[in-house]
């Protein structure tokens, strides 16, 4: 560059070379003179992180209540239960005849109860659900179960959402909203929750008494029951439409949160489109495992019903099994009695992210939660990927 410099530090030229020579002895001295006190193994930030985000939690079921003819409430107790945000879920880990499967269930209790080691889960018996059937048959007082830590992003954020949340609940989808309503009551959350709760008939409404009590005592919570198969005075009749939303939303800006079965999402999305809301004001809980992938656009018709060879590497073990084109790879892995990591089962959370070594898969675009670089380097979320050929995959050890 320019001329040669002659840097003068403290104008003591030669001594500076000494200072250079002293760098090593100085550092040695610093080390030697420091106290030999033990290093804290788990410093405060790591301690709180472990409390907030345990990988596994063990609970004993301490109470079972029938909420409706097809829905049960389970009280889970432990010495410690991780604190959570109203709307989050835990992934329940089950061993059904050697098959290690998981299911996400929203925590329906208030975060406050977690401080005394309690969660409530609400489970609705699905028509073709072998897992819910197992739970209904086997979960009794005294049963010990394992769950993940609290997961998911279905919660209110005041920096992002409108102050009023229109909660659209269908069937079992009431559970996260029930937690939110209690969190508002308990002073943990502060927003207006207008709940549009869709059920078939009066008898299908779960937690009605509890919801009404909260709504009567806290002006921020409002509950509207919408019955599709029954006409009753004092209840909305039909489906939750754009008009119903407008009727109860009022004039203030609002965010829509929805939680329910896939058919509800598909219907409501069209209704919400009529409202002309910005995307940021519409949030949906996990879409749920896709059980009819052949009906989605782009799924090759000639692959329906095909069976493929699936080679699974996990740690040092390799297993070869069969996989059906219309079942996710995760389901095939669970059928093979392999314990694969999974949480959301919707392609979103990335817990089941695995390396696709060979083969082709189909992924419904809406449930493709992968990172860009994962696509580039051949990674898939096995819970939302369906085999279109023989496959070889590597699953991370849990």
């Amino acid at each position, binding site marked *: *560059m*320019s001329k040669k*410099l*002659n*840097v*003068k*530090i*403290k104008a003591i*030229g030669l001594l*500076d*070379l000494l200072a*250079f020579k*002293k*760098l*090593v002895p100085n*550092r040695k001295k*610093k*080390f*030697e*003179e*420091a*106290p*030999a*006190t*033990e*290093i804290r*193994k788990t410093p*405060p*930030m*790591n301690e*709180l*992180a472990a*409390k*907030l*985000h345990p990988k596994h939690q063990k609970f004993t079921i301490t109470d079972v209540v029938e909420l409706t003819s097809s829905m049960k409430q389970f009280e889970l107790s432990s010495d410690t239960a991780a*604190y959570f*945000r109203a709307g989050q879920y835990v992934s329940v880990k089950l061993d059904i005849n050697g098959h290690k499967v998981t299911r996400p269930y929203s925590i329906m209790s208030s975060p406050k109860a977690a401080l005394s080691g309690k969660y409530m889960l609400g489970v609705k018996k699905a028509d073709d659900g072998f897992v819910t059937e197992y739970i209904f048959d086997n979960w009794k007082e005294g049963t010990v179960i394992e769950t993940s830590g609290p997961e998911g*992003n279905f919660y209110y954020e*005041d*920096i*992002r959402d409108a102050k009023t949340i229109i909660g659209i609940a269908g069937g079992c989808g009431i559970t996260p909203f029930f937690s939110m309503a209690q969190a508002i009551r308990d002073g943990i959350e502060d927003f207006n929750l207008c709940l549009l709760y869709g059920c078939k008939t009066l008898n299908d409404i779960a937690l009605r008494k509890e919801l009404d009590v909260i709504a009567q005592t806290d002006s921020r919570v409002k509950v509207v029951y919408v019955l599709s198969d029954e006409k009753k005075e004092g209840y909305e009749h039909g489906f939750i439409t754009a008009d119903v939303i407008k009727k109860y939303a009022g004039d203030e800006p609002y965010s829509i949160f929805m939680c329910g079965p896939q058919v509800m999402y598909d219907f409501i999305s069209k209704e919400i489109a009529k409202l002309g809301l910005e*995307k*940021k004001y519409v949030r949906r809980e996990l879409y749920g495992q896709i059980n009819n992938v052949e009906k989605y656009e782009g799924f090759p018709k000639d692959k329906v019903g095909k069976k493929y060879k699936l080679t699974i590497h996990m*740690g*040092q073990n390799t297993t070869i099994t069969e996989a059906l084109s219309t079942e996710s790879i995760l389901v095939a892995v669970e059928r093979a009695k392999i314990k694969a990591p999974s949480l959301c089962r919707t392609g*979103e959370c*990335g*817990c089941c*992210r695995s390396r696709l070594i060979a083969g082709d898969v189909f992924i419904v675009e809406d449930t493709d*939660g*992968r*990172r*860009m*670089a*994962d696509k*580039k*380097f051949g*990674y898939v979320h096995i819970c939302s990927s369906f085999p279109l050929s023989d496959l070889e995959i590597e699953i*991370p*050890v849990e």
Partner: protein
Amino acid sequence: MSERTYDVVVIGAGNGGLAAAATTAQKGMKTLLIEQHTLPGGYASSFVRGRFEFEPSLHELCDVGKEGEWGACGTFFKDLGLDIEWVPVPEAYRMVITDKDEKLDVKMPFGLNEYIDKMEEYVPGSRESVTNFFDLCQEVLDAIGYLGASKGNPDKKVLTSKYSNFLKTASYSVDQVEKALKIPKKARDILNAYWCYLGTDTEKLGFTIYGAMMIKFLLLGAYIPKMRSHEISLAFEKAIRDFGGDVIYGTKVEKILVENGSVVGVTTDKGEKINTKHVICNAPRHVAFGNMVEGADEIKEKANREFNSRKVGGKGYVAYFGLNKTAKELGLTDYSYFIYPTVDNKKLYNSMFERGNNPMQAIVCLNNAIPDCSPPGTSMLTVTTLYKDGAWDDVNETNYVQVKNKIAKDIVRNIESALNVKISDAIEEYSVASPQTFARYACAYDGSIYGYESETWDSLLPRLLMMKDDLYINGLRFVGGFAFRCHGYSSGYMSGNTIGLLTYKDSLEEK
């Protein structure tokens, strides 16, 4: 207990671990990389929220360069054949000082001459001293290169004849050197904007490391990967496998087994023992010595003293905003902003010990480098600040959310007033990486996203000169932010490269 044998086991797939494993695998060593998380990269990753994919940590990667003028990292990546699409960062930084009396808003370009010219525009009369400063930085860079090439045994004559200014300044702080060069105060304030990348105020920060970083940024510019830093991490992982190395995730190394002062193997939480003579550790030295090393009690006291003499760098806090308007619509014109409440970085450093309502901020608007990094009509903004010991000690499980959201709200308010923009009503997605988040995903010690502070006495140079002294156990070497290269992305990668090569050299000598 099953047993396997490897030439080298790398613990942790952070930047240093990935780089080290790729290096040893490329050299033909039978390499095993073990990572407890299910993803590689540590903070070099990405995450998806709604229709946005966020960059968790990388602001700009130093020392990459381009075809014809590769920097050290660029050369290393190219040599490994990493498949990464690099995008240049448009400007060095915009620095905004919000203090009423100190008000300053400058935008500094890359390119040495461009930078000096711009400085002269903002601070007339600064040209000569600032040119001298960079002249010195260049000498520092050359001297470090020479020290590296001499593998810790430099020829004193060469040092005194060719690198005398380096020798004279090497044991001083940034402030001391800048003052000696008579750089005007305002020019120093502008020059020191990058201090937060190293996390120690310029009164304590060693000059060599800062000078080397500055000149590299200005000469080579900075780059970011098209697909967030996750792309770098996966490119490394692929290279390791392609060179015949093994990578296992979801597995934690519990013990590093030592016999007679030398490494003999490791054990994992999956009940496996792996035999090896070489362990390259991406976990901090004190974590390895304190929790993992077994069979070398004689070093415990020394290791405790070493740790207690040092300070662990700042705890990370990053707020991520997915915005439903374009950067242009929002008035976010630049890629990299530093918004500081004052130019006095010592005051800023001290402010990190508490959670004030006006934290310093290092901001990136990714769309100003990669316009299509988010869907049409949207943009992303990432804001980083740092905290020191004590600042988060009152945080518990019930106030945690409130604490992190309050900081985010303060940050948004401060950005709006400093840059005269409105972003609060455009927030579609929002997430925070707190010190707990860094602890959760990357095992960050006390939430720190840096290594030990690079104060003058423990900066790059003294660490380089003492690499042999710091080798407490034969066959156990360290990479990453807590290792000899100090922290930062490029340092992490290059630490892995150097240690990989040294480990390879060790293995040759055994034969």
